[in-house]
């Protein structure tokens, strides 16, 4: 059990899970358990689902995923917070949503975009997603890749020859794109700290 020693938590067995697999697997659970529909989903499968997906892909502008315009992401209000936070972030002027959320490799780029576009559209329409969205393992890997792509120079010393084993950028820089903190701050006076002490 994790409690017995923090060491377990300092390593692969817990750490990457924190931003990767576990986080989203249980998110999927939630999405399914959330809807008694889960069985229906399997039943109706392809037809309706794809239908729905495509429907929103068009109606809810899921195809926005194919663009690089951040504004386009906010065609879904569920992306609004991220957009607002991004506008307050250190990257607003230097990186757009898709700069961080799609591979910087022309081929895979559109695959990822189309796939996310489709599934997020589906999720959006069906409502099968948690209020606090968290990044999927695959997309987290994509994002980590983009950090390294743009920051290759400055990070050679820490990802370079001196470290066979990899390390996550997001572990420390989780708020570069749109920090949770800025979600919090966004509904209160900046830096407001409660008077009680």
């Amino acid at each position, binding site marked *: 059990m994790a409690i017995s020693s923090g060491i377990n938590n300092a390593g692969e067995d817990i750490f990457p899970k*924190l931003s990767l697999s576990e986080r989203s697997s*249980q998110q999927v659970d939630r999405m399914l358990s959330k809807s008694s529909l889960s069985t229906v989903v399997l039943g109706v499968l392809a037809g309706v689902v794809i239908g729905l997906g495509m429907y929103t892909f068009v109606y809810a502008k899921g195809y926005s995923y194919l663009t690089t315009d951040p504004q386009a992401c906010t065609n879904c209000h569920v992306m609004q917070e991220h957009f607002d936070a991004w506008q307050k972030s250190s990257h607003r002027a230097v990186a757009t949503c898709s700069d961080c959320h799609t591979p910087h490799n022309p081929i895979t780029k559109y695959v990822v975009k189309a796939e996310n576009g489709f599934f997020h559209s589906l999720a*959006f329409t069906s409502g099968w997603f948690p209020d606090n969205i968290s990044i999927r393992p695959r997309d987290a890997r994509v994002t980590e890749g983009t950090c390294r792509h743009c920051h290759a120079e400055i990070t050679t010393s820490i990802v370079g020859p001196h470290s066979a084993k990899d390390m996550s950028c997001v572990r420390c820089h989780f708020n570069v794109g749109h920090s*949770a903190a800025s979600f919090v701050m966004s509904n209160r006076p900046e830096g*407001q700290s*409660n008077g*009680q002490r």
Partner: protein
Amino acid sequence: NIFEHKQEAKNPFYRVVELNDRTEDPSVWGKNFPMQYDLYLRTVDQQRTRYGGSEALPHSPTEGDPREIVTRSKIQEDERLKRMWAGYSFSIDYREKRGHAWMLTDQTFTERQKAGPPGACLNCHASMVTTYNKLGNGDIFKGFEAVNRMPYPEARKLVNHPIACIDCHDPQTMQLRVTRPAFIEGMRALKASQGIKDYDVNKQATRQEMRAFVCGQCHVTYYFKGKEKRLTYPWDKGLKVEQIVAQENQDKVVEWTHAETGAQVFKARHPEFETWSQGVHARSGVTCADCHMPYMRQGGLKISDHNVRSPLLNINRACQTCHRWPEQELKDRVEEIQTRYYDTRNIALNALMDLISDIKAAKAAGASDAELAEARKWQRDAQFYIDFLVSENSMGFHADQYSVKSLAEAIDMCRKGQLSLRQRNLQRVATSASSGNAARK
């Protein structure tokens, strides 16, 4: 479906009815705000967490107590609590709390009613705005004073609902507001101690503070002052347990005489607000509402979850806005903090039981009041510390280090009480025993 999303996004609420300070019935407010109303109604639900939430137990209705569902009895679960409160109404009946929907019922039918409580009790168990206004002809302070001193049964007739929209919201603007004179007075005293004069919570508090203050109207420790039974929050010196003990000692508060030891003691109650204020979340501007009424999506809207409950039943919304850890990990973190607290709490309760046993035994052995005075004083203070921590409902989470630190102080007090007693006994026999100097030193 998708149309809804777009619709609602444009126009959040429809003003179906006009609301004013005479509109008590939440179902009427519900016409304008159906989503919040529906959620508010769900506070009847009961569900356990490891240390919190509540359990629904069947109860065969008697005419004295028609409830068909009650919660677990805390004093049966832990005999030490019963003994700590020996001689006081809490040793008759003290149960797990549950959702807001139950507050009026549970208060009306608790066996503590045998002690004949004052109307002041209602301040935190019913919707009081209209009642206070009526009795005070528009002056809530006057209405408050009137209710305080009434006998409970009489006052009970004047109220109809558990907490309702009107108790937290301004009917015109829907802004949060404080409607409880006791909180307004307590907060004024607290701010004064920090050098801020004539603090007016409804004018000066930030929106973020209000998201905690509305809860602080009730989730606090209190006592009834004088025969006017004025509901009082003893915050004149600050919100830390040591400051509250100092204040109540200064006010010479004595609520009962301990049945086993004869000590003059006083009670602490659910100090969630005071405890939260000492934690890192309060320090970070995180309020009660952030965790107990987190934002949730309904259709295209973000609304506050009015089903006020344990955040552990709602981790994604309550915690993951700020913490990127998986739900299970967040739950484990809370339980690790709570278990450390729980273990320390056991040490403290055992120390208190030992002190009570020693005083009782010394009394039985004929020790005089003068000889018992010091030990009884230790019991009085230590017991309040422990009560303060035991009555708090987050099992240490609201302020993890502070809570355990206070327990450490209480443990030391209990043991010093025991020592004071034994030392004195020794001195009495010292002359006849070589080991006397050992004791006297």
